[in-house]
């Protein structure tokens, strides 16, 4: 076990804390005793080679996979046994490695529907979903923030890949999460789109606790406040970027230097 690094400037209590999370698939231990803490105002990146257990870790934090052992806390409350929808309503949002949107629904409805999760009222059959003021206003703000204000009625599946990634983030934000778990948001993006996304992440960091899983090392070292390095399901280092860059174990195991 590696000790947690001292937190960044906003040394608040952690919003999301994982303690000794382990996930086994039969005989394979995909994630082994991983602990980490996410704080508001902090961008925490998790890096590691393919198969290091990063996605499994995100899936456990978001509630898609139950942990074999360990504990997850959200703002001090034990949420280990909570389902994904319940965690989402409590403020844990996530994006996926593969774009996960509603391709046949309009851009606006994609965001509005996510905002509806906060006020579901499924029994109110006489009310029109599109007239739902609460979700509409959230969606209208999110459209502007995502730069999609010109194409609200376009089917989301017709957007460019970069716009779809942007939309997915907006859909996450529409649920008004406190914690954002982002699984490779830059995957498949061009240079210009990546820059926009990184600027967005830095902006989001101020009001959210961010976990970023990303393969683009340049980007990670530019925006992360803390970096956790995983190898074969275990954390081998967790510290500020400057320390990680010169960490001997990391250089050997991950940055490919002997």
């Amino acid at each position: 076990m590696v000790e947690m690094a001292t937190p960044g400037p906003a040394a608040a209590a952690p919003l999301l804390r994982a303690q000794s999370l382990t996930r086994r698939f039969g005989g394979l231990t995909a994630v082994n005793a991983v602990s980490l803490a996410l704080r508001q105002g902090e961008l925490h990146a998790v890096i590691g080679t393919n198969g290091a257990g990063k996605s499994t870790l995100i899936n456990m934090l978001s509630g898609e996979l139950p942990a074999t052992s360990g504990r997850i806390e959200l703002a001090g409350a034990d949420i280990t046994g909570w389902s994904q929808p319940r965690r989402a309503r409590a403020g844990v949002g996530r994006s996926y490695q593969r774009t996960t949107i509603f391709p046949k629904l309009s851009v606006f409805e994609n965001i509005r529907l996510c905002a509806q999760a906060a006020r579901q009222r499924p029994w109110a059959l006489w009310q029109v979903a599109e007239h739902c003021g609460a979700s509409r206003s959230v969606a209208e703000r999110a459209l502007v923030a995502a730069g999609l204000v010109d194409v609200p009625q376009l089917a989301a599946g017709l957007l460019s890949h970069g716009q779809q990634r942007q939309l997915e983030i907006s859909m996450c934000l529409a649920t008004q999460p406190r914690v954002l778990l982002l699984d490779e948001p830059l995957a498949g993006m061009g240079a210009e789109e990546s820059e926009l996304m990184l600027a967005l992440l830095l902006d989001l960091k101020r009001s959210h606790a961010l976990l970023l899983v990303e393969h683009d090392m340049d980007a990670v070292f530019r925006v992360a406040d803390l970096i956790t390095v995983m190898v074969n399901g275990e954390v081998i280092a967790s510290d500020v970027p400057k320390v990680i860059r010169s960490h001997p174990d990391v250089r050997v195991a991950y940055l490919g230097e002997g």
Partner: protein
Amino acid sequence: MATEHTWIVPATAALALALLPAVLTPYTQDLVVKIEIYAIFALSLELLVGMTGLVSLGHAAFLGIGAYVAVRASGEGGAASLLWLLPAAVLAAAAYAFFVGLLSLRTQGVYFIMVTLAFSQMAYFVFHDTAVGGGSDGIFLYAKPVLAWAGGTWVDLDDRRHLYYAVLAALAFTYALLALIRRSRFGHALAGIHGNEQRMRAAGFATYGYKLAAFVIAGALAGLAGFLLAVKDGAVNPELLSWHESGAVLLMIILGGIGSLRGAVIGAVTFTLLKEFYQSEALLGALAAHWQLTLGFTIIAFVAWLPKGLIGLAGTGAWRRGARSG
């Protein structure tokens, strides 16, 4: 917004249907009643397949249960009261749908199809092979239900005209209910589950509960159709629950166009009329004995040339919510 006037066409159709008995012969009036009942059945499946993305191949079980309860619960005495017989039939179908949904909704895709098929075959054999259902010949309804109140008989389903308007009212109710669901938050959540269930869960929707609710409502409406079918025919038999029937209702919504309420109704009309036509010895002679073959080829042709169903001929695309580009 094109969606604001969508009630005009169905309302006009309902009005036309209400005036139709004036010009119908008894045979054609029976045919219209039969088509309307199948339209209710097709609409109930559209809630699952088109609105939620759950392809069930066991939907006839709920039709059959509604029908059998209508006959069994009326007994052999006088006419039963609609007031309790109709709710009993609908609730029995809903209860079985709750049970089947509880288990089958834990599976997905082709497994869901197989599990729903298995549960409907189970129900089929209960009615086919036990004393409950009277075997393969089925059972007769001795007296059709009535609605009597304050000394008068207000509705007597033995009366052809009363039955006609009762079925029309049930169809209008079903269509209106599904149209309401479609535009409500519930319906939009179902559309989201259809589009991407993973994202719905990540947003905070407990999707299992939504799907179960849709499954139970669909089962209840199929039970309503079954009740009406039993009353219309005055008899039930196990074939009502067979997978042929489940397949036929699936074909109806495919023919009409999945994803549209009107499509489901148009599909029920087309399928029933085609079947009547191909079964008619008066029109087709010896070929009528092979109606399954001719109907099959016709359906293949429809699917090949109209992949979006008959509703696709309308060509506006406005019925496909949210997919409009401007």
